[in-house]
């Protein structure tokens, strides 16, 4: 399963970049993320609780940020394992300066699921993946506004 998309962030490039890599923001924006703890630089452990179709459950995950090109792009590698099965997803996020207050974010992702999630959730998976990603950026946009306001 794979996909891509893009959106415009209402912030300048540097600010967008900084917030995208802020673990507190990440935790707030990832759907079902109850806990995010850093294990080493750019590597986190996360507890995710996500329901896909009839398969609800907890995943113990690692989230790794790799291939960082400052102010330009990075790769997000998520590996999760739990009762409902396993998930492996890779996303590449790319930022592009538009003007002082606008940055274009584009992304591509690839995801593989295994176990029960694949067994009974296959019909919904691409829909759910889109939902999770859109939800992430929606929340992220909100965070960005909040930070601007408080600034």
């Amino acid at each position: 399963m794979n996909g891509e998309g893009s959106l415009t962030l209402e912030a300048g490039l540097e600010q967008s970049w900084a917030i995208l890599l802020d673990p507190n923001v990440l935790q707030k924006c990832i759907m079902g993320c109850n806990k995010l703890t850093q294990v080493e630089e750019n590597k986190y452990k996360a507890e995710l609780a996500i329901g896909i179709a009839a398969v609800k459950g907890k995943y113990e995950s690692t989230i790794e940020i790799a291939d960082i090109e400052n102010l330009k792009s990075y790769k997000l590698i998520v590996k999760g394992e739990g009762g409902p099965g396993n998930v492996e997803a890779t996303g590449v996020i790319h930022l592009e300066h538009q003007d002082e207050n606008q940055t274009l974010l584009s992304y591509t992702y690839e995801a593989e699921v295994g176990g029960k999630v694949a067994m009974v959730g296959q019909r919904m998976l691409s829909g759910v993946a889109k939902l999770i990603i859109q939800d992430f950026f929606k929340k992220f946009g909100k965070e960005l506004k909040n930070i601007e306001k408080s600034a």
Partner: protein
Amino acid sequence: MEKVIGKAVTRVEDTRLLTGQGKYIDDIGTPANTAHIAILRSTYPHAKIISIDTSEALNLRGVKGIVTGKDILPFVQPFSVGVSAPVKYYPMAIDKVRYVGEPVAVVVAKNRYIAEDALEKIKVVYESLTPIVDIEKSLEEDAPLLHEHIGSNIANHRTFHYGKVDEAFEEADRIIKHKFHFPKYSATPVETYGMIAQYEESSNQYTIHANFHGPFVIQSVMAGALKIPSNRLRIIVPKDIGGSYGIKAGTYPYMVLCAVVSRMVGCPVKWIEDRQEHLSASSSGTDRVTYIEAAVKEDGKVLGLKMKLIDNVGAYIRAPEPACLYRTHANSTGAYDIPNLMIDAYAIMTNKLPTGLIRGYGGQELYFPLERIMQEIAHQLQLDPADVLRRNLIKKEQFPYQTASGGMYDSGDYEKGFELALEMGNYKEIEQKREDARQRGKLFGVGLACIVEPSGSNMGYITIALTPEERASSLPKSGCAEAATISMDPMGCVNVRISTTPSGQGHETVTAQIVSDVLGIPREQINVVAELDTSTSAWSIASGSYSSRFASLGSSAVFYAAHKVRKKLIKIAAYHLQADENDLTIENGSIVSKKDPSIKYSLKRAAGSAHWNPLSLPDGMEPGIYETYYYTAKVAEPPDENDLVNSSVTYGFVADMVTVEVDPDTGEVQIIDYFTVHDAGKLLNPLIVDGQIYGGLVHGLGGAMYEELAYDDKGQFLTGSFMDYLCPTAPEIPNITIKHIETPSPLTPLGAKGLGEGNTMSAPAVIANAVNDALKLYGVMIDTLPLSPNRIWNLLNKAKEKRGANQV
């Protein structure tokens, strides 16, 4: 008294089943202190197990123990299987998982809820390996290996040459060939696997109650895996099994697993499989790639066939596989007189659920390519498909007919059956229907198929998986033994015990019919006990419910056991009446003289004297009335040194004609009519017969149109619920018209042959033929299943694109 064999009498089972008094595995109760288990299963298709951490799960209140693959090793050894490839199949993964759903650990807890909760707390670390799911890619040199020590993914390979194949292909006007793929699909009984296992340390005995229905040769396989003398493994099968259609033969690895777990945790354990487990990890039919080549004359006569069969037996080859390859070996040329045959047979392993018995076993995989190529011959030679079948059908006067591969078709009148099917379907008027449909914007098609339905498997056939040299070094296997026990109690009432472990086919009813006719007692007064207990029942390796063997073999054992009782009763009466045994017969509850009906002796008194007054019996006669008969057919011989084998005892015939309409805009297939003619010899109970035919046909319809256990190319299983795995339900069932002809089998005492699998074998082929006929103008070739609207739509669109391109 009126004879009841052959009458459509109602089933004795139905009252209890319809009033909630059936005794299924989940109804029989459990021993005190029984714990419940839940199974942790692999989410990876192919991976090394690095570690399993059970500590957190063990701390959960109510958990009695957790058992992993490595833990069971002291108590088990790999299951034996009839191939020379040294595959090590254990009931639980040891150091590597090879399919999604493979058991990795078992939690034993006070109840199932706790056990399921504990599963989530077990932490398994896997190292993922490259999976392989494609049949042909599994044979490539650089394919990932499932079992490294074997050096390839091939579990079995044999080549057979019968007749003069090369000459036939040289003599032919045309060689018509194609590659077909039959998908992996299942049977979906309402009742899933279930079992209660108990280990008793004092006697070193395992007792397992399970809805396992044989073949009971697997009792030996299980005892071997448990490393105990076989009489220390007692298997008890409940009176009622909620359907199986072959799939429940695959309960045995779980029976061994539960047995070992009971021993290690120290209490009886119960497991009822859930539906997801059933679809992903029970057992399934075998998916097959077939390359078929037919050497034909211009008039459509087939001179010879070459077939390369590649069966995918899943992650581990396990008994009874590779039987899917060989169950139909004797009838490889179907209903046709084709003396020259070459078969190149492979069983290969991939990262999918291991396979096993399923209704039709091997038949649908055989007839899909065979019947498709017969239609293709007609298309390519521009002949009427009906004429091509007529030209090749075995003629009535050729029976008993010996097939190229050693089959001995006992009886039949195939031409009569086929013509009847064409007449029922009004085949002559078919062009009119095609035109009518065209006017409505629909594509009309007609499909034909003629198949031979084997029944009563010869236990020797599976040894054809070995070469003649390999066979010579082990003990030969033959026969198809089945037993029945009939007793009369002191009051003259009859009990019958059978070992055919029915799963809904009505064996109790037919048994009562047979005993009633032989002993002259109303069938309502006969008590039939269908529970099988390997410690107390009369059984043998072939016992069980599979290969449609009740009508040919089980019924014969009952018939001869009843005759033993009859003979004893007549002897007793003759002694008391001072009459000639040969002059006596049984009528209306009495033993009477044929010459002088006033001379008679009551049946009840004859039976009673064997209990109440044994000193009154003729000299040398044992007291009591308790007779067991073991029946086997003589024609079930071991394969010979030329690999000729008669793989079944009786061979029925099915002729189908199906009409369909395809919607060219949506790809939806609508079956207009399904006409089917059956010849299963003498019918024992036409009511049960038609029920079996409907059921078998609907299972075949599922295979043709809906059902597939789908995996993605990474080996993930995609159809784990009834929302993903589509089964036909009542609204999908088309108009079905059944007719019978009865050509009695000369081999069985009642002239009966098995049935109930015929349309499971034929429906995928005949429906595919009908759809292919409907799409003929588009140049479409149907070579795989199921025929989902999606598949048909894609085929049509590709054909349209191609046509468009050609016009430019």
